[in-house]
């Protein structure tokens, strides 16, 4: 037996008493559904596969301040010595460290002529010819670098002639054909794609280029260099602790930064996302809690205000269940009004976020899930006040004037 219409009519004759709570529910719905959506997006971003064995890879910076040092020779010596350290599987000097938030990108074309070329940016990782092995990649198509393809570039203008690129970059530059064997151009020097790896994220985790990565066998000699080392999982901490000392013992006219795993670098890169999600979780919790309190408070107030009415209804034949149901229905109707307005607000808010903060379009699932959540929380919050109402003695109908 649904008795919605008289409850609704009575409510509508008291609009001013419900307008605040309706608006509160609407705002909660709008904010919570958008916040939940943003949280989900951020979590998805954070949980993307980087294509790298993050726990096994460490990176550190090396800064040569003394011109007297032969940097290229020193780096190759360092590499050799690092490979002798127990637990070290692979190592290479490198220009940038993945997921770290700093590094280089180049722009590539799929043909020499700029006219009509497809071009794409890519994070370019340059190191020794073993660079793909250092990152633990398997070559999905084509082949790995050969030792003779490795070049040292100081001021002689040497450029590698070969590259291994990710599938994402291959798909971008050669959407219709297999990239292996094709030439790509950054300047007008052709670089041949000799191999393809499935996945490797670059240095900027929030960039659209993050999945577009190229590897090249070269040392581009500069004062500021980096190393990347892959280590047996059990030995990681040991190597991190000793690596600085080892390198300074070989050559102390330089600064060697403390080594870190890629996990730590990654966490730092995603720190703002983490902070944002935590903040949004707090906001959601607080909002839902306040809304629950608000509607529970309103129901308690209404129950007290309507004691005589409740007693009268009981005298006229309402059972306890029916009184309880009355207040549960009333709050559900209020929630319903809030939800109708809230859905509109949620879409407006999402639109605003899309326009000004390059958010994506809110999926309807989030609105629906939030609605279900809000209704459950509201009915839960109202259950006890409604039960209290049902316990009011029918005798109050004759006792209070």
């Amino acid at each position: 037996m649904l008795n919605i219409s008289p409850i609704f009519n009575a409510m509508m004759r008291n609009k001013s008493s419900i307008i605040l709570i309706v608006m509160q529910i609407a705002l909660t719905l709008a904010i919570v559904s958008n916040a939940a959506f943003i949280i989900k997006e951020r979590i998805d971003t954070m949980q993307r596969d980087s294509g790298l064995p993050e726990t096994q890879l460490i990176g550190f910076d090396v800064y040569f301040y003394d011109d007297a040092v032969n940097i290229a020779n020193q780096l190759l010596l360092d590499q050799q010595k690092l490979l002798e350290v127990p637990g070290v599987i692979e190592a290479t000097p490198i220009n940038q460290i993945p997921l770290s938030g700093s590094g280089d990108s180049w722009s590539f074309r799929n043909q020499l002529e700029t006219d009509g070329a497809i071009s794409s940016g890519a994070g370019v990782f340059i190191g020794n010819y073993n660079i793909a092995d250092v990152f633990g990649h398997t070559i999905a198509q084509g082949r790995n670098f050969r030792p003779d393809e490795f070049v040292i570039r100081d001021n002689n203008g040497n450029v590698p002639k070969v590259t291994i690129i990710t599938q994402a970059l291959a798909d971008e530059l050669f959407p219709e054909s297999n990239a292996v064997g094709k030439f790509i151009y950054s300047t007008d020097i052709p670089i041949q794609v000799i191999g393809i790896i499935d996945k490797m994220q670059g240095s900027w985790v929030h960039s659209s280029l993050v999945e577009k990565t190229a590897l090249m066998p070269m040392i581009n000699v500069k004062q500021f260099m980096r190393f990347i080392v892959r280590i047996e999982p059990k030995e990681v901490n040991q190597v991190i602790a000793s690596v600085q000392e080892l390198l300074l013992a070989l050559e102390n006219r330089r600064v060697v930064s403390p080594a870190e795993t890629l996990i730590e670098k990654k966490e730092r890169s995603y720190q703002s996302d983490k902070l944002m999600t935590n903040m949004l979780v707090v906001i959601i919790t607080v909002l839902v809690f306040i809304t629950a309190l608000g509607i529970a408070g309103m129901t308690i107030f209404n129950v007290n205000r309507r004691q005589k009415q409740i007693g009268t209804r009981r005298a006229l034949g309402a059972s306890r269940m029916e009184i309880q149901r009355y207040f549960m229905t009333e709050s559900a109707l209020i929630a319903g009004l809030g939800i109708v307005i809230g859905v509109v607000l949620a879409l407006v808010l999402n639109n605003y976020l899309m326009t000004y903060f390059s958010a994506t379009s809110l999926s309807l699932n989030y609105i629906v899930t939030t609605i279900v959540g809000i209704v459950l929380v509201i009915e839960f919050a109202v259950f006890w006040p409604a039960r209290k109402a049902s316990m009011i003695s029918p005798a109050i109908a004759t006792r209070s004037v």
Partner: protein
Amino acid sequence: MLVMSGINKVYQTEQVQTHALREFNLSVAEGEFVAVTGPSGSGKTTFLNIAGLLENISSGDYQLDGQSIVGLSDRELSRLRNEKIGFIFQGFNLIPDLNLYENVDVPLRYRGFSNKERKQKIEHALETVGLSARMKHLPSQLSGGQQQRVAIARALAGEPKFLLADEPTGNLDSLMAKQVMELLENINKQGTTIVMVTHDPELARRAQRNIQIVDGQLCDFTIYQGGTVNNDTDKNAVA
């Protein structure tokens, strides 16, 4: 219609124990119009609440329309109130946020009548009290006497056998009180049993039978319309 035997009602508050009804015996026959008088605090409302199943009894037995109500569940009691009993209160007790139509509808909805049945019963009840033209008005837009007439319509709409009124004219001036009283008399003539608590000896005298409650006990002065006074305090003279 109503048989109370050996009813006690004790209110227990933190410090005081109030014996509101003691060894209370009464029977009211179908079709009677009984007026209940008595000093303030003597237990009239308590009696009416028990008669109307609004309060439970501490001990004794109460049979309503041939059925003992002792041990019934809340659901069963609510159902009985809804079907057999109509209430009229001193303060009218209309629901302020519902219009007259919706107010009269309240007990009918609990009864589970169909839309069509309810509409017909509501219109008939409002017609009986002469307020059909104001169905969409809210109670606050009516005078006290009109409000009480709506309350009577509400009590009548479900065609209960038994009408209970606690000081129905207590908040009305004498003219309006007279109108309400006439309405109740008409309803009684149609066969509805009425028990009415009143302070007004004038109105009480118009009932078929007067009973007086003093200190939680019954003093039965039965006045028949013929005018004979039957001063029988011990048991119910009418069966």
